[in-house]
């Protein structure tokens, strides 16, 4: 570095702050042609060769702002190498008291300043449109985190993690308008390095809490929440045991007692961040999405799933699709975490509303319903109510849903033989016809499944479906009037049907023998004149 005196240096710094470039450099910049890769490499080499050329840092920093992403990336990497070498050389380590006032101190301060500027510029680059630039700068930043943690420890030889820098990175990522880079970050670093994972989750919860307190603009907040949710959902590393936590970005000494190594703190961090998300404002889509992943990604991987109980019970009570979706996680809590849910079956029964067989999530619901009703210790009246309600619904259902209901009811009947009365009422005599003939004893309005009177009823609806227009559905419904030989039907095989799949199945059928043709045809298609009564489609005209 040419400057030797403090004065000069100070003056230069003043100039730096005002114009960003000292006059000498400006002159030189004027002379230097547009930056080329060779030039950048040259400059980098000069820096590494001697302290004289430290001013090159300034040029490189300037090149980083270049329009051309290649140039800016090259200079960023060049700078990274230079700074890394300097860190290794100890130029950034805290100076001893005796060094105060020496040129070394001045240099150190100047360098630190440049380094700070460099970091800000890198974070700036994260917001770049260009995916490569953004990603490379992210890589550099993470490596910087590593370098800083190894070399810039405040106390010598002690474990240190550069949280400040990481926090800045995380914050920048979460505030981006898209979540591509964030997901990349999660995939490449959060899922791999447990220290990054821990700190990321911590920062995420802090930032989310801040966001809530700030009352920021709703649009921005929505984006932030969206990013956060997708990042949290994208995490795939869920350590089961402390021994799995071995991969770190910054090597952790064996003796060190850092929360990063603890299973409970890792899980706690995940828990905190999710709770922070749940506390914030969620739109319907986000709400449903979280409910969908909750039983797989959240509940099994946090310390105290009980904390989710309120959220889940509220969701379950909300009714409609939200109830359906919360059922999974709620069941998990009941099963594993001893959640006592009063009137669970009543609520479950209430979920069988008019639309249940028409919604997309019906297969998900039926999987669970199968599970809930699998116990043979349930009261027969309750099971009968479910069967009767399902058959009521099936009568207005699309074929794809009937296909689920019929084997489902079969399995229920097979499990609860008492309910066979719904198919075969032996206690009926003709004298009772006044009692039975008129009305269905089943009370559709009753919300308590134990009191609906379904046991006195019959599943006429399912019997009617034996005459369904679709031959396969009709055949399937006929299993109810055949001897129950089969132990059970695999419900899973019947779940994922729709008009599309059924039509596909129809259209792939080959013609093996000529299809039957009507042996007489109506004299005319439409009725245009009154005298023609032989029309096929009366009341219509061409």
């Amino acid at each position: 570095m040419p400057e030797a005196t403090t004065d000069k240096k100070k003056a230069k710094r003043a100039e730096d702050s005002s114009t960003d470039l000292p006059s000498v450099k400006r002159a030189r910049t004027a002379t230097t042609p547009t930056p080329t890769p060779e030039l950048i490499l040259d400059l980098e080499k000069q820096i590494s060769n001697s302290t004289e050329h430290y001013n090159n840092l300034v040029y490189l920093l300037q090149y980083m702002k270049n329009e051309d992403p290649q140039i800016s990336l090259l200079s960023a990497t060049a700078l990274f190498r230079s700074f890394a070498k300097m860190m290794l050389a100890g130029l950034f380590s805290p100076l001893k008291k005796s060094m105060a006032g020496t040129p070394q101190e001045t240099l150190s301060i100047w360098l630190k300043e440049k380094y700070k500027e460099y970091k800000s510029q890198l974070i700036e680059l994260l917001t770049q449109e260009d995916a490569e630039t953004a990603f490379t700068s992210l890589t550099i930043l993470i490596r910087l985190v590593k370098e800083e943690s190894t070399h810039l420890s405040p106390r010598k030889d002690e474990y240190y993690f550069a949280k400040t820098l990481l926090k800045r990175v995380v914050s920048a990522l979460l505030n981006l308008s898209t979540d591509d880079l964030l997901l990349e970050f999660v995939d490449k670093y959060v899922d791999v390095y447990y220290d990054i994972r821990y700190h990321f989750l911590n920062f995420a919860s802090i930032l989310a809490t801040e966001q809530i307190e700030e009352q920021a603009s709703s649009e921005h907040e929505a984006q932030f929440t969206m990013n956060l949710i997708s990042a949290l959902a994208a995490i795939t590393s869920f350590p089961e045991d402390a021994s799995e936590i071995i991969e770190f970005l910054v090597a952790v000494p064996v003796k060190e007692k850092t929360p990063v190594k603890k299973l409970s703190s890792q899980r706690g961090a995940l828990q905190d961040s999710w709770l922070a998300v749940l506390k914030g404002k969620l739109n319907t889509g986000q709400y449903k999405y979280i409910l969908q992943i909750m039983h797989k990604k959240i509940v099994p991987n946090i310390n105290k799933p009980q904390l989710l109980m309120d959220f889940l019970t509220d969701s379950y009570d909300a009714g409609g699709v939200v109830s359906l979706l919360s059922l999974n996680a709620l069941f998990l809590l009941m099963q594993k975490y001893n959640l006592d849910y009063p009137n669970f079956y009543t609520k479950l029964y209430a979920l069988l509303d008019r639309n249940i067989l028409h919604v997309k999530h019906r297969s998900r619901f039926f999987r669970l319903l199968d599970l809930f009703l699998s116990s043979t210790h349930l009261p027969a009246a309750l099971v009968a109510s479910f069967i009767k309600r399902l058959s009521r619904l099936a009568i207005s259902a699309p074929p794809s849903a009937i296909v689920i209901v019929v084997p489902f009811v079969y399995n229920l009947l097979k499990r609860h033989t008492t309910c066979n009365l719904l198919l075969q009422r032996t206690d009926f005599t003709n004298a009772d016809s006044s009692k039975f003939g008129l009305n269905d004893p089943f009370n559709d309005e009753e919300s308590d499944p134990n009191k609906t009177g379904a046991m006195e009823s019959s599943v006429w609806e399912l019997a009617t479906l034996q005459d369904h227009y679709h031959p396969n559905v009709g055949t399937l419904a006929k299993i109810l009037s055949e001897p129950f030989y089969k132990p059970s039907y695999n419900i899973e095989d019947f779940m994922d049907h729709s008009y599309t799949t059924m039509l596909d199945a129809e259209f792939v059928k080959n013609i093996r023998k000529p299809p039957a043709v009507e042996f007489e045809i109506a004299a005319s298609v439409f009725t245009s004149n009154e005298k023609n009564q032989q029309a096929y489609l009366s009341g219509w005209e061409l």
Partner: protein
Amino acid sequence: MAKSQLKQLKERLKLSGLTGQTNTKKQKKGRVPAASRQDKDNLLSSIRDEFNPFEVKTTRQKHGDILGRKVQGATGRPGLSKQIGEENRRRTLQNELERKNKVGAIVDRRFGEHDPNMTAEERMLERFTRERQSRSARNSSLFNLEGDDDDGDFGGDRLTHFGQSLSLDDEFSLGDATGGLKRRGDDSEDDGEPERKKSKNEVMKEVIAKSKMYKHERQKAKEEDQDQIAELDGEMDDLRSLLFGSTAQPSQQTERAPAKDSEYDENVRELGFDRRAQPSDRTKTTEELAEERAKQLKELEDQRLRRMRGEITEEDDERNSRKPDADDLEDDFELDDAADFGFGRGLGDSESEEEIADGNEFEAAGSDESSDEKAETVERMSTSTNATPLSTRRSKPSVELSEDDIKSGLKFTYNCPSSYDELLEVFEAHGIDKQLVIIDRIMTLYHPSLAAGNKEKLMKFGPLLIEHAATIADDSSDVSEELFNKLVKKIYDFTQSYPEEMALGFRSQLQITRQRLQSAISNSEVTDYPLPSDMVSFILIGMIFSTSDYFHLVATPAMLLIGQHLSQFPVSTLGDYASSSLLARLSLKYQTLSKRYVPEAVNYLNHSIFSFIQQESAPQGFPLTENPAKIVIEGSSKGISIRNLKVSDIMTDTNISKISTPAEKQLVLSTFKSDLDSLLEFASLWKGKDAYKEIFSPSLALLDTLSSEISASKKRSVALGLIRERVTESTNQLRRLINLQTLSRKPLMLQQHKPIPIPTYAPKFEENYSVDKKSYDPNVQRQEISKLKAQVKKERKGALRELRKDNAFISREKLAAKKKKDSDYHAMLARLERNVASEG
């Protein structure tokens, strides 16, 4: 310890009194005459046999001796039994053999004498009836013209010539040298008749034959005489010319006479061989024709019924018929339960979990993308085969009638089109009436009987007509219905001739419709669905194919597609409303005969009623979207009347919530009336369904609400004035029907089967096991049968063995006899030689 052989022998001899002191005092005293020497010898030889170990053959048991069990045939004396057999045969068989061809016997051939199935009375009865019959036949059938000769033996006269029977089936006369057999009225030919009668019969026959022969000879002689006379007559002319010098023409007739005779004979013989002419079918009367038609229709209807009940299935699979056995491991994991019922594979697992819930939770909005892609490929496929992309089809120039030149526009021959473009080329700009003529001409020109390959051409031509009918429906409203009917009739004729090809044509049409329906469901912006052509293809399928079949290759997918439309297609415009109404009506038509249940149609009809109700709450029993579309009609409906709906109405794109003009009002009210009609028709169609009340009570509740709304609000009453009556009427009718149907409802008795026996897997132990016991069958009858069977088998084997031995014996005897004869002969020769030598 058994004694030695020698000791045993001594003991035995002593016991029989052959050794030891023979002349003791006691014996002397008794003085029983000593057994003759022969007796002694016999006794001795028997003892010798007894003690000859080589005479006894023992079969060694594989498992040794089991608890003193006696095994039959374990020890035997083959030599002895052989000897016994030989002696028996010598006694019986040889006797027979010697007497063979030497002694006569009486064969009893009386009727039923050797029939073991007849009792004595039956035998007598049968003989009696035979006798009576033969007697009566002798008396009556001789001159009985009506009598049909079902019993050849009693048959009347036969056609004879020269004393020979001309009938081919006469087994006697053909080989008879005498040729004199004319009539065999005699009963002596009967199988069971005794020998004596038969011989008499033969005598009689001979007498007859002889007389015939004589007769024939007399005839022959007479003919010869006549010939000679004729010859003389012929020469008479010559003689006369010699005598009188005149030249008279010789008569040719007389010369030709014998030739004519032989010609006649030939003719007669031919006539004899000729088959009798059969009466031809006479023209049937109208009644008979009607009856025949009725019979045919009944047959067709029976077939249809069987198809409807699914008794004739497309694939006769026995997959479901197999009951699970004890040996099933329940590990047939590759079997899909759902696949057993013919459902497809479903979506698979991938998609089910990952669907993210968005605004509309109903399936309708979520028609999966993958299926869209699939549909696209299908579309590509179908267009490539038809070579008519959708766009070109729609842009077809409208058919115009060239009024001035009607006749000259038509050619007499046309190429048979093989693609839709070619079809359009052929049809050019002819009106549909001309097109029908052209179709007729093509059908005549390319009639399959005219040339090879014509059939294939017509097979390609047929499906094009379907497409053409759809196109006509799409782009012209000026086609008269009469002509359209004729076109439909043509398509129907084609379908009857080439059902498979036409079915494929209809299916590809359905695929196109399906693809557009799917894009319309997933994206409400799409407006190329529904088109009149879609409706027309649905209508045609309903008319042409037997939609009542349990499974039908065209009707089933069509019905599913209608179901998808009714349940998922959002009704937003008047056109959509009309199209759904039409499809609901069509689903009714499809199920008219089979009376199957269509949930989607009921749901749609409920929605249709609900859209007229202003109140937000809906009765339970049918699915409801979040914001169901409501039809708002303002103002009065004066001056509007209910009209017939048109297929082209489905193109109306006024939003159903913005109805203003009278024409729109008329359309929407007519559609609603059509829906009400459909509802009531469904209600009468599905009488007797178990869940009748559950099916229709939501509709009834909706109708109740609607009528109360109409009567409560003056404004509504005015607006819906046109259908007010109809709503009240329908409400009452439906209520009455529901009440009636509920009265007859009974609890279900679906499981009226024999109780399923619980299978037992315990091994079968026999409590009273015995080595000698052959069978442990608890069923006594079966046990008896198997016992008898075993016995029969045993006897049969024994009989075979005996027969074999008999044969061996016979051949042995014959050989011996021959040898003896030979040696006798040689001995005689030798003796003679010796005699000659000694004499010589």
